[in-house]
């Protein structure tokens, strides 16, 4: 391989690295332990204390809350999609209006902490 192609390739790699780091930075800084507490206080009333989608309100909801321990379902969603669903509510992601829009109540940091916790819950066992 010639020198110029090599430099070009290295730059490309560097750029890709910066992009990935930048995107995961918000979540890396996020605190899953903080997210666990927020989940217990806000989400568990419908999604359940263990995140199975079977909270005390679940039998009274016409649409069943998402099971957050379902690896397949949760793995199919990007962090951006999760952020949108939490912040803007179920309706914003073509799901039920019964999932509230929490963006008026929780900060961006809170929501990122929740996503960090959700990732542990669904996919780190």
């Amino acid at each position, binding site marked *: 391989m010639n020198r110029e192609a090599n430099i070009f390739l290295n730059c490309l790699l560097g750029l890709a690295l910066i992009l990935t780091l930048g995107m995961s930075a918000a979540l890396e800084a996020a605190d899953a332990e903080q997210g666990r507490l927020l989940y217990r206080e806000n989400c568990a009333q419908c999604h359940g204390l263990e995140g*199975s989608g079977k909270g*005390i*309100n679940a039998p009274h909801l016409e649409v069943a809350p998402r099971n957050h321990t379902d690896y397949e379902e949760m793995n199919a969603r990007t962090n951006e999609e999760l952020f949108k669903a939490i912040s803007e509510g179920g309706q914003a992601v073509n799901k039920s209006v*019964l999932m509230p*829009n929490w963006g*008026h109540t929780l900060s961006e940091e809170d929501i990122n902490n929740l996503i960090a916790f959700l990732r542990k819950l669904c996919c780190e066992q």
Partner: protein
Amino acid sequence: MFILRNIVLLTLTAVPTSLLAQEAPIPAIAEACASCHQLDRSEGNTAHAAPPLFYAGNKYRQEWLEQWLQAPYRLRPAGGFFADHVITEDGIDSVDEASLQDHMAVDSSKAADIADWLMSLTPMDDLLAASSDYQPGSVSPRMGAMDFVKFKGCGGCHRDTPEYGGLSGPELYTAWQRLQPQFIVSFIKDPRAWNPDSAMPSRGLNDGQIHKLADYLKILTNED
């Protein structure tokens, strides 16, 4: 710059002390309540054990308060803070009824005195006044119920009849009897402005939408 910062710091520290100075001491009749309820704004309510009462005068109707204290009935099907009263079996949550205590009752003269004192606690006058343009109106029971359950999702956490609705929030079929109309409007608008620990989200509804929901709570009481 340094001096300016110190002045700012000084003013900031001065505010809470002056607030504290205004708080009246808790009278002997209400001392028993303080072990569970937040009666003082500065105290912080990290325990979640019971609803805060330090703004009782901005929240309740005095007649209801006086009666309920003599013959309390359950308002929150899952207790003060739901997560403290839930058992999970095979991932399925249910209310741990055995962990729910009956509320203490007091005799009629004590109830009158306590209600009097609680109604004097009005630190949220300004917040309440922001909802003063609400004029209670009417809504058809069918439309009201549909809005409450299907469109706004309130029924997921609240019962609008003794049989129907979620369990984590207080029942709302007696809400109009116990709560001041402006409080209802203000709380739906921004629950955490009242209680930073609230498990109820603000949905960013506009005044018209909130007034319609409040009207629905009104007809729940007037119907029977």
